């Protein structure tokens, strides 16, 4: 951890600020740089400016769903890994998810260990 050449950057998107706070809390000691956005629009703004290694997005958000947001994000940062969190897993169309190369779907509430594990795997570590 101390000899990491560059810290991985994780962008977390959720309209629920408490979720953002909890995810940050979980990943604090993982050594990532964590960016947060409360709306997909804000997240797209960040993506326009920053290189990001992993995008963790909520599915249900006002104005735009997580999948719609990720579909746009993929065009801006195709190399960024993608991870979806949702409270209603049945609601997410699987084909669409797989088409976007999202392999992991985390349910809400999530298991803290499972989140850390999923993030590590998505970042290829």
């Amino acid at each position, binding site marked *: 951890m101390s000899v990491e050449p560059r810290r991985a950057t994780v962008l977390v998107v959720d309209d629920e600020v408490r*979720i953002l706070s909890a995810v940050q809390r979980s990943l604090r000691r993982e050594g990532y740089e964590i960016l947060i956005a409360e709306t997909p629009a804000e997240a797209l703004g960040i993506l326009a400016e920053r290189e990001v290694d992993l995008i963790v997005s909520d599915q249900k958000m006002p104005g735009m769903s997580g999948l719609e947001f990720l579909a746009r994000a993929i065009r801006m940062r195709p190399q960024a890994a993608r991870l979806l969190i949702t*409270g209603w897993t049945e609601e997410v169309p699987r084909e669409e998810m797989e088409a976007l190369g999202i392999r992991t779907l985390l349910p809400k509430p999530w*298991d803290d260990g499972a989140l850390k594990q999923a993030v590590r795997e998505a970042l290829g570590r």
Partner: protein
Amino acid sequence: MSQSAPLVRIIVAQPRHRLGSPGPLGGTARVLEHLGREMDIAIVHDAETCLARAAGAPTDLVVLDAGLEAEGDRILEALRASGPPVVVVTDRPEDERIHAAFRNGAADCVAAGQDYARVLPIVALEQIRRWRETVERGQVEQRLRDLERLGDAIVEAIPAPIAVLSAEGRVVSANPEFARAFGVSLDAVAGKPLEHLVPEELYESGVLRLLIASAARAGGGNGVDRGTVGRTRRFDVRVRRLGEGGGLLVVLWDVTERDQLAKRLADLTRYNENVIQNLNSALIVVDRAGAITFANQAAEGVFAAEPGTLRGQLLWDWFPGTSPEKLLVARTLTEGVRHRNAETVITRRDGSLLPIGVSCAPLTDAAGERIGAVAIFEDLSELKELQRAVLQNEKMASIGQLAAGVAHEINNPMGFIHANLCQMTEYLTDVRRVWDEVVRLQESIAGGSLGEIRRQSLGLSQLVRQLDVEYLVGDFAKALRESQEGSERIRHIVQDLRSFSRHDPGERTLADLNECLDSTASIAWAMMKHSVVLRKEYRDVPRVRCYPMQLKQVFMNLLVNAYQAIQERFAQSGEIGEIRLQTAERHGGVTVTVTDNGIGIRPEHVNRIFDPFFTTKEVGIGTGLGLSTSFSIVQRHGGTLKVESKPGEGSSFELFLPLAAGDETGPADGGTSAAGGAGRA
């Protein structure tokens, strides 16, 4: 005719020349003058005048002077058959004409001699007495003949078989009805035993024979024996003894039809009674004072009364906990108000509540005066239970609709609470590590060397720095606060859901529709907040007596519909829809309007949307019961539910609830007792 007038009328017929002549005949009229107290003596001179007078008034005697010769013969001849007696007077008794007069019907002859004045009155009186006797006898005979004819006519005309029997029981005569009724010829009845003429079955029971025998024995009294005989044809029989002769009058009165009618009436009465008694509905009849005059078995069930104990009781006495107005019959009795399937809840003697449907109508006498009321009470508890089940299912279905939104609402706080708990556990582990170091340091201070104390202290400082304890403690508090706030949010959602899925109490309660609408909207909000703007335009509205949970169900159905309409219109574009909630007081009631700018309803569907099971949604999304359930709930409240819609632009559902929603249960502000449970809504 029958009066025995003291007046004696005599006609003296004599030649004109006899008047004033010296012989005794000239004084004939005078001789007769003292026969009676009142005398009418007319003197005539020719047959024509004499006969005219005799025909004109009842005449007791004609005294004919033989001197009238041929005219006298005409008088005799004319009166011979039926006229008054004619006494001939003559001064020539040897005359051949006198013999002829006797042959012609003269009653007597008096010769005009020395004792003419003495003899003539004697002869005249005798003739008058005899004549009067004859006349009277003739009159009596005539009356008897008349009576006989009348009797015959009656017996002939009477529509009942009548026979006269001899003492031996043989038929002497019978009337035409007898012949007609028993199919015998009138000419052939005489001399035959009655038994051979009437149908055998009339003799089967033996009653007829007994009646005849007993009447024959009853020595001439006026006793009438009667009885009923026959099977297929029934006859009332009366047998009467006819005077001393021993004959018997037998009158047979055909009562077959009467008996059949009586039987049909009895059958019909029994049938009606059966129907009424076995009706599932409780039927009672009360008089003007409300006293029960009739109650069927079902009524005893509904009233929880012992069989046969309701009659005579006051209706109100059976429901001490229910005001007379709520029984609905009261206004029928006082004002003649009719009710049809009005719903109310009554409190029975044992304190149990019973929802009932009441139909009642005034009972009037022939003059149209109200004399009471007929009421049918229907036990609605089963129906209510079914309605409640349907409503509950429907509610569950709409909860399913909500589940996605609600799950999201719950899962968000659950998500961060859960994550925070994990983190706080880790923090606690860190804190414990620091604590362990603190304990070790304390031990060193108590008994260790200075070097050891120094080393321990350094280790602790390193650990605190390494774990960033200052941040940790601050973040621990923050995580705790956020988690508490999250759990509070979950508690609210669950509370809302619980209040939505609750049953109504059995009775209507006074409820604030703004509150009902708003709490429902807050549940629905979870589902729709990402795609809908909710605009609330609530006015102050009076409280309405209603079933609040049922109305919340209606509001939820309307909100879900509005949301789905918006989803259909905007799901692709991601635009935000709008739902407007309005309440207002209007026309003696409260209106609640739910307006959306969704997809709208196609004109051909507008008339069907309140039909049960009509749905335009995919299977699994709509049950097709939402709006029809809503409609029937609103109807149950005496309100209306109307829709206006423009395809592609949106729909507006307007619900109207009259303030006197419980009109059929009496005035809204009347039953204050019913308001007791309002606090629970």
